[in-house]
């Protein structure tokens, strides 16, 4: 690596390139797809991004400690079905929200405890709990569409509605506020800094008296709760509960985190990056739909683009430089 490359690399690693990526995709969309940048289209994109974004916040916590949460889609499905079913049975909304968040956090905490207690790869643990949760939801609903969304939730997630003076759907505002709080949490609190430490160097973290079990459990619990919340919000969008609603979010939530530039090896990254990652992913998908590609071709292009975008800023150092 020559010396003249260094400042560029440093600037790139600080994050503005993620913003440039979002803007780049967006400008490309404006140029290629008619009506891509109309206000209503942006509103709709933001709403779609918010469902992904809420789940991606949770996924980021887990990725920061060097884990990966494959139970996100199952918990989105569970949150979606539970919310629709309970609300459809006439249960008051605050109770429904508490139950959904509580169950999500509980499943996530189990992931975290099992992962840290037995020192297991989180990938397999969350895969197993996803199977249990997904199966339980199937049993509960007999694999059918159930329940209905309360009226307020439909408005909450409608692209056409505003939040007070802000012309954005309440769900978008909720997403951004949650992301901001999460970012403050990881940057400004002791536990937040411990997340980075644990992800960067497990051994050093142990020597600095970071509770591996505690931090891991909190991160997975947050991921579980946020995935379930995303499912609940999706109920407003879909109008009913269906257990498969979370399926596309398995790789999307990971892709959003990765496109944002958070390292899957842990210790490097942040929540705001995942917000930008979610926006990029949704803008890109909208762009590909606008080009009237079939969903299969969209998927193929998306896969290639994820690799290409990550190659811009997610590359490891050369082996020779690490010695």
């Amino acid at each position: 690596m020559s010396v003249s490359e260094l400042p560029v690399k440093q600037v790139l690693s600080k994050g503005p390139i993620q913003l440039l990526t979002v803007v780049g995709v967006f400008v490309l969309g404006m140029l290629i797809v008619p009506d891509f940048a109309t206000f209503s289209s942006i509103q709709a994109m933001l709403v779609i991004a918010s469902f992904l974004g809420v789940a991606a916040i949770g996924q980021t916590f887990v990725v920061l400690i060097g884990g990966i949460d494959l139970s996100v889609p199952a918990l989105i499905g569970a949150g979606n079905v539970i919310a629709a079913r309970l609300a459809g049975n006439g249960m008051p909304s605050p109770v429904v929200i508490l139950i959904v968040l509580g169950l999500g956090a509980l499943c996530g905490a189990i992931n975290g405890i099992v992962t840290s207690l037995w020192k297991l790869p989180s990938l397999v643990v969350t895969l197993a709990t996803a199977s249990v949760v997904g199966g339980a939801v199937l049993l509960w609903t007999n694999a059918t569409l159930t329940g209905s969304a309360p009226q307020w939730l439909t408005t909450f997630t409608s692209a056409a509605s505003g939040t007070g003076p802000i012309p954005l759907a309440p769900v978008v505002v909720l997403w951004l506020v949650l992301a901001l709080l999460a970012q403050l949490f990881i940057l400004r609190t002791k536990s937040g800094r411990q997340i980075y430490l644990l992800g960067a160097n497990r051994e050093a973290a142990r020597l600095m008296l970071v509770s591996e079990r505690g931090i891991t459990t909190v991160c997975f619990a947050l991921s579980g709760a946020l995935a379930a919340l995303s499912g609940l919000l999706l109920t407003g969008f879909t109008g009913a509960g269906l257990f498969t609603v979370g399926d596309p979010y398995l790789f999307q939530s990971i892709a959003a985190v990765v496109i944002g530039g958070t390292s899957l090896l842990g210790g490097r990254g942040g929540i705001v990056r995942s917000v930008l990652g979610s926006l990029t992913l949704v803008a890109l998908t909208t762009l590909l739909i606008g080009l009237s590609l079939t969903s299969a071709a969209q998927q193929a292009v998306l896969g290639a683009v994820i690799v290409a975008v990550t190659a811009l800023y997610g590359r490891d150092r050369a082996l020779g430089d690490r010695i």
Partner: protein
Amino acid sequence: MIAKLAGLRRSPLAVVVTLVAILLVVNISLTPSMLAPAQLPNTLNLLVPSVLVAMASTPSVMSGRGGIDLSVGPLLGVVNVFLVGLLVPYGLGGAGTAIPILLVLGIVTGLVSGALVAFGRLQPVVVTLGGYLVLSGVALVVMPQPVGGVPDWVSYLSGSWFGGYLPRSVLLVVVAVAVWLFLKRRGAIGLILATGSDDRAAHTSGVRVSRVLCLAYATGGLFAALAGIGLSVLIQSGDPSIGKQYTLAAVAAVALGGNPLGGGRGTLVGPILGALSLFLIQTLLSGAHVSSLWIQVVYGAVLLFAICTNSSIASRLTARPALGSP
């Protein structure tokens, strides 16, 4: 006898061997017909793709850097779809042309992933996640709907010799194991393990780490192509979406087999037995007439239990040398 048992207890394969043994006994007592000549080919045809895909995941996991090849499942589907949807219509479906083309397809796909990991210096999960999406998309573009019509040799492979006692699909696994043993004899597997254990140390010892990574992913691609042929033997048609579900099962099989997902250690027997035990859990559940809705719950619970037990034994193993080391 006791010493032998104690030795087995300390092997990383102990749990999965015990698990397979128990599951086999329970399975056979529940459905004795499972191993009867009439059923054996069907049973093994079902098992072969799962075993091969677990083998396909093994080298990339061994090679370290958190290397999990998520794209093996869709690669199965692409191989299946290429065979039925492209090679057969263009008259290339004969065994002599189709098999080499499919194997090269697998190897090249693996090489591309490996090159992106090694020379692109990208995280394996990102590369293979991208590969997962690209390959799933390609399979659907080539063949939007499932269609029938496999060449004769694929039907031939689904049969068996000696009146049902030796199903021919096992040949695919034999080929894969032979390739593995060849690589092991040539020292390539040792280099993959060295790279996975500590790529910097391997680099300074003169191992060409980039080439080794390419080799690991290409080997995985080759095994995935064999698994794709096995899948075609199983379903006797082309289906663009069935391959994807094998990805996560493969990772689970590798972990269950006692190979650390961090790389650097592990065996090939482990993932094979891991795949076998996952398969036996499923046949057990369907053999016991468990409602299909319950199967998923029990499957997850058993998987969780198995890896927890596996890990407590593995940690007892690794605790030993750690005590002695400074």
